């Protein structure tokens, strides 16, 4: 199919529809409003259902219900709205239901601002909701990748009966880039556990996250963790760019990974060899890849680049495990680092290296 020019938010919505999603429940918030707007316009045309709920809490619980009935379903919001959804997300994980949750991150804490940020990393990968749980967190860096990951995200959610989160930011949501919607065979899996109405003689199907007996709950959590082990084995994605011979490797995802590529090009002109490790899944985190490059003799240091005060840097430090120094540079509150400012930071690191 030919390429079309699309806003990130609209591309997410179109990708979801093409992936067979027919149910969307949400509540408006900048900078992701193009997603519900697109869904409101398009879903009725394909036999789907869009509901603007009375709140984010209501929306995520509608997702819970639809997922329990076996529907391919999603919701989207931005940071403060995603905070409101956390209880529901924890329930959905506990009840082992698949769905897609999109967070187009803006600056926080509190109502914060509406400009792009990456300060919801902790919330996305370290829980957010309560209890022992994880979900696959996908971090696209282009509109094309947003489309591909949204489509993959639904399949990953079904494969493990677990929610998947797409973590973007205001810049990726608002910008336009050419995108191609590749033909895909959409095969929705059988869902023998879904509550679709009791038929004669069939055992009752129950969607539940309550395990009042401690041993039963521990068994359940152990079962969930066997799924997380499978996710770690099968779903980890990462891009390595120019890492061979790099003296400093930048670790960045999404928007800041794009900025890092500018920095690498600028540095090359000054004879400085930089690389980029770009986690595409923030959970599972590509710790093996980072460890491998930390082992390399040519790697002298890492710089984690984020639009936050330093969240992913903790996972980078755990992955590097003291083998090489890990530095951090970040802007927050909706400020986007400039390539030149990052290059200056690199030069400072080289002086002390």
């Amino acid at each position, binding site marked *: 199919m030919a390429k079309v020019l699309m806003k990130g938010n609209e591309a997410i919505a179109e990708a979801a529809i093409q992936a067979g999603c027919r149910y969307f429940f949400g509540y408006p918030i900048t900078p992701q409003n193009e997603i519900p707007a697109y869904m409101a316009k398009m879903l009725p045309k394909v036999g789907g259902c869009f509901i603007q709920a009375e709140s984010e809490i209501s929306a995520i619980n509608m997702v819970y219900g639809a997922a329990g009935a076996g529907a391919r379903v999603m919701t989207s919001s931005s940071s403060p709205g995603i905070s409101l959804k956390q209880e529901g997300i924890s329930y959905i994980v506990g009840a082992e239901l698949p769905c897609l949750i999109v967070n187009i991150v803006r600056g926080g804490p509190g109502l914060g601002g509406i400009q792009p940020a990456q300060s919801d990393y902790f919330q996305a990968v370290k829980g957010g909701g309560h209890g022992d749980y994880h979900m696959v967190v996908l971090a696209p860096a282009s509109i094309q990748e947003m489309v591909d990951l949204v489509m993959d995200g639904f399949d990953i959610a079904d494969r493990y009966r677990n929610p998947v989160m797409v973590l973007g930011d205001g810049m990726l949501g*608002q910008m*336009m880039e050419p995108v191609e919607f590749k033909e895909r065979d959409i095969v929705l899996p059988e869902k023998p556990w879904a509550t679709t109405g009791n038929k004669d003689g069939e055992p009752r199907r129950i969607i539940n996250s309550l395990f009042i007996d401690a041993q039963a709950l521990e068994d359940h959590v152990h079962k969930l963790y066997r799924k997380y082990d499978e996710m770690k084995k099968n779903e980890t994605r990462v891009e390595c760019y120019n890492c061979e011979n790099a003296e400093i490797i930048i670790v960045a995802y999404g928007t800041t990974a794009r900025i890092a590529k500018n920095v690498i090009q600028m540095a090359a002109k000054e004879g400085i060899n930089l690389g980029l490790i770009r986690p595409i899944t923030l959970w599972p985190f590509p710790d093996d890849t980072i460890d491998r490059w930390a082992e390399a003799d040519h790697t002298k240091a890492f710089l984690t680049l984020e639009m936050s005060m330093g969240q992913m840097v903790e996972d980078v430090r755990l992955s590097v495990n003291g083998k090489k120094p890990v530095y951090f540079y970040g802007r927050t509150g909706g400020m986007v680092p400039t390539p030149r400012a990052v290059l200056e930071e690199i030069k400072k690191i080289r002086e002390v290296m």
Partner: protein
Amino acid sequence: MAQEIIISGFGGQGVMSMGQLLTYAGMLDGKNVSWLPSYGPEMRGGTANCSVILADDMIGSPIVTEATALIAMNLPSLEKFEQALVPRGLLIVNSSLVNKKAKRDDIDAYYVPANEIADQLGNFRVANMVMLGAYLEKTQAVSLDSVMKSLREVLGPSKEHLIPINQKALERGAQLVTSIHQRV
């Protein structure tokens, strides 16, 4: 070489659509392209701007901080973004609304009375196309053919009748900067 353009003006001057048109045309020409709007808490009558990148190589950040060109539709835009131009960068000012000259002398500045020309053509809304015509003439960033195709795409069948006046506006903008160039 990559074109990194800032287009800026009041809301309603067609700043966003000018940028989208240019981006669309770049895509049709087979370039890598990106378009990024400002989406701050702007009010009606406030400033609006967008960043457009047209490149043969991959595009990193879509934010333009070192612009090869600035299209300034009003005075606040000139004052805000003049310093973002690279040396020898291209500045196109809407002199219908801006009565100041650029402060820098290391850039190529052109002053285009876009509103007057648009009025002469019979539709004040095509002032943005006059500016875009001037930009395209100076940079040859994308082919006119692709711009016209994009225009059809963006306007859609219901506004097909607006194609000729938009085309004229592009041509007038182009002619104007050519004649300025010849005088210099």
